[in-house]
């Protein structure tokens, strides 16, 4: 594979050289002899055609091993919180799959017999750049499928392109419900193996309604971009349905993403009358906000609902403010590490800690889950195809509407024509356990997927605004 790509790269350079040299010949060279010019032109033309044909022919990829492209943040602000744990989780699970070390039901070597190569690449740079990279991975490297994507923005950008290029793409982490509700109502090639972000807000609202029924209100501080805006909207709408007596503030704070300095925002929050503060901060912004808030006693005065604090819990350690309501975007990370007792989680946690010296967080679980989804689908399709390597259509058929075991939870592909996963969710209160030397969660409530996700065919915002009809909560 690597060799093929190098060859292709060389051919590519040759092609471009011919174009450039053509320009050079035409614009620069002052050769009075017209015949020479024409001859040279023909030569360049032939070379161009040959090299480009060579590229076109070289595109075939051998099938004895499969290639999964795994996009995640390797640079920029998203790397520490999401990219690095996601990459670690991916590397771990893929190596284990290739060696057959994953616990049952995934204890066969490889995926449907093929060894897996993961091309882990950088997701930063914005939607347009990512679409370009996606096309490259498909058209140049001929990858079999994609598993990954952290950012909602990237997923929104990739969805139509994945359909256009007819490439199996399994979203691992990105949260926006827009993917199947708006952008791609009739998906074929695109899947998502975890609940979307609406589930976070709804589950949190359930948690608040039952644990803080007498709170006098809630305000928020969210980054002023799509993720922050959506997170607040979903939580706010769900609260209006589930706890109408707890009033939301219309003076929530909207700092710019990566602002890093929150002095005035903290003053405004300290001044605000509401007891509860919702935030979907993550990564460096979250950590900076916590340090600055701690220095001013903010977390003693307010109860914080932090939907993505799971990404920072272990790193903050004893600086994790005690008593915050902490989310992990599902039963991943700290919830799995501490509370889930299955052989799968035990194995994953052990292997991860041994290899990287730190606890796995939610992106590690979510990425591994997406790849297990792929293994499940390929093997199911291969079995139906009498053991032969399945076509993409067969893999899609196998995954649509299926239920498979992820690392930390069962995933039911039960929404959006069987393309959107539904999983359980968990919320609890964080504190630091001095004896363990680790942050822990208590007061944990679990929520069933059908209770916190809109029913099939229903748009999230409509569902929330309509009073969340059809939610199945036991």
């Amino acid at each position, binding site marked *: 594979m690597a060799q093929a790509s190098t060859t292709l790269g060389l051919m590519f350079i040759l092609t471009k050289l011919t174009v450039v040299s053509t320009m050079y010949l035409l614009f620069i060279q002052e050769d009075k002899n017209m015949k020479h010019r024409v001859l040279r032109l023909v030569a360049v033309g032939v070379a161009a055609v040959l090299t480009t044909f060579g590229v076109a022919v070289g595109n075939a990829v051998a099938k004895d091993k499969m290639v999964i492209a795994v996009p995640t943040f390797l640079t920029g602000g998203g790397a520490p919180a999401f990219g690095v744990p996601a990459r670690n989780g991916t590397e771990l699970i893929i190596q284990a799959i290739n060696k057959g070390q994953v616990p049952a039901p995934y204890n066969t070597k490889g995926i449907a017999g093929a060894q897996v190569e993961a091309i882990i690449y950088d997701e930063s740079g914005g939607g347009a750049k990512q679409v370009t990279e996606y096309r490259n991975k498909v058209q140049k490297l001929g990858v079999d499928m994609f598993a990954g994507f952290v950012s909602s923005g990237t997923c929104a950008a990739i969805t139509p392109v994945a359909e256009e290029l007819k490439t199996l793409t399994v979203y691992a982490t990105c949260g926006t419900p827009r993917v199947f509700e708006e952008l791609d109502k009739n998906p074929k090639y695109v899947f998502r193996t975890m609940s979307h972000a609406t589930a976070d807000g709804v589950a949190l609202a359930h948690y608040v309604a039952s644990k803080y029924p007498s709170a006098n209100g809630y305000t928020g501080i969210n980054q002023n971009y799509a993720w922050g805006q959506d997170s607040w909207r979903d939580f706010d709408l769900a609260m209006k349905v589930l706890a109408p007596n707890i009033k939301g503030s219309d003076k929530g704070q909207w700092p710019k993403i990566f602002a890093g300095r929150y002095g005035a925002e903290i003053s405004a929050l300290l001044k605000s009358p509401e007891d509860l503060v919702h935030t979907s901060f993550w990564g*460096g912004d979250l950590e900076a906000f916590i340090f600055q808030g701690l220095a001013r006693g903010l977390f003693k005065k307010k109860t914080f609902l932090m939907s993505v604090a799971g990404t920072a819990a272990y790193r903050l350690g004893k600086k994790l403010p005690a008593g915050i309501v902490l989310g992990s975007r599902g039963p991943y990370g700290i919830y799995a590490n501490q509370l889930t007792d299955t052989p799968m989680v035990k194995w994953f946690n052990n292997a991860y800690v041994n290899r990287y010296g730190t606890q796995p967080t939610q992106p590690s679980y979510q990425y591994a889950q997406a790849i297990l989804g792929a293994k499940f689908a390929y093997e199911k399709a291969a079995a139906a195809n009498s053991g032969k390597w399945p076509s993409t259509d067969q893999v899609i058929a196998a995954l649509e509407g299926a239920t498979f075991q992820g690392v930390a939870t069962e995933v039911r592909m039960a929404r959006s024509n069987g393309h959107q996963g539904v999983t359980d969710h968990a919320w609890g209160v964080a504190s630091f356990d001095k004896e363990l030397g680790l942050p822990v969660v208590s007061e944990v409530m679990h929520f069933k997927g059908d209770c916190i996700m809109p029913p099939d065919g229903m748009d999230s915002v409509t569902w929330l605004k309509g009073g969340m009809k059809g939610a199945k909560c036991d």
Partner: protein
Amino acid sequence: MVQLLLGWFDLQLIFTILTDGLIYGSYLFIVAVGMTVIFGVQRVLNVTHGSFYAFGAYLAAYLGGIWYEHELPDFGGFVIIFLAAIVVGVFFGILIERGLLKHLYGKDEHIVVLATFAAFLALEGIGLFIWGTDPYFFYQPQMMLGFVEILGMTYDYYNLSLIVLALIISLSIWYFLSRTIWGRLLQAVIFDREVSQAMGVNVTAVFLGTFILGTTLGALSGAAIAPTISVLPGIGVEVVVLAFAVVVIGGMGSIPGALIGSVLVGVVRAAAIHEFPQAEMFVIYAIMAIVLVFRPEGLFAPPAVRKI
């Protein structure tokens, strides 16, 4: 109308807005002053400033991490802040000035900006190599100082001390420029480089000295802010834009301009956060655009006279 005005007159709110504004303004000034100094003397709009900020923060957080890991005395963090600033400032000051800018003096302003932009990109890459992607924490100095309650609002001493740091920096620069021989020489060079050179001022040394000063201030800003943030890749990018804005608003190269511009932005921003949180994102660019439209030389730069 009167009622509206009275409604606005909320002492605690006004106090909070002013304090928040001063703190943020001091932060902006500390972050921008190095860029302002370099621009004032060398007419180089230095994008690598963002890298110095980042490297200052990284080195301080790295050393601080080791320091506190060994449970050494808490105050050591403050020594580390200044130490890191000087190490980074001197090293990168010499590297960039001698290695890059020296070859570009006299070229088009744009080209120099681009060259520093290029160096900035390269340094970002080098930073990733040295420090990796994981964040560094250096919160101890911020935590150890504790907080105070004024008019029912808590403020922590560390962030309040940024106001003092901003004052110290601006007073020192003022003293240096107006009361020392070196400062006079510097002003001569700013006024007319050729004539100063002809009169025997060692312009090369002045430029190098200024650049090291600017770099050190840049690194100091990073080191001083490090205890309040999570030090991770990309923190320099944000700072470049902020510092640009301050330099533009204050008047290219004017230190008092930068100080007053910073506080202006800080207070307007704080007012927005308290009253119109949605507007926070635009405040600084809006002020920058307004200043550029009505006073393109900045608030404090003397308007240039064009000779025929």
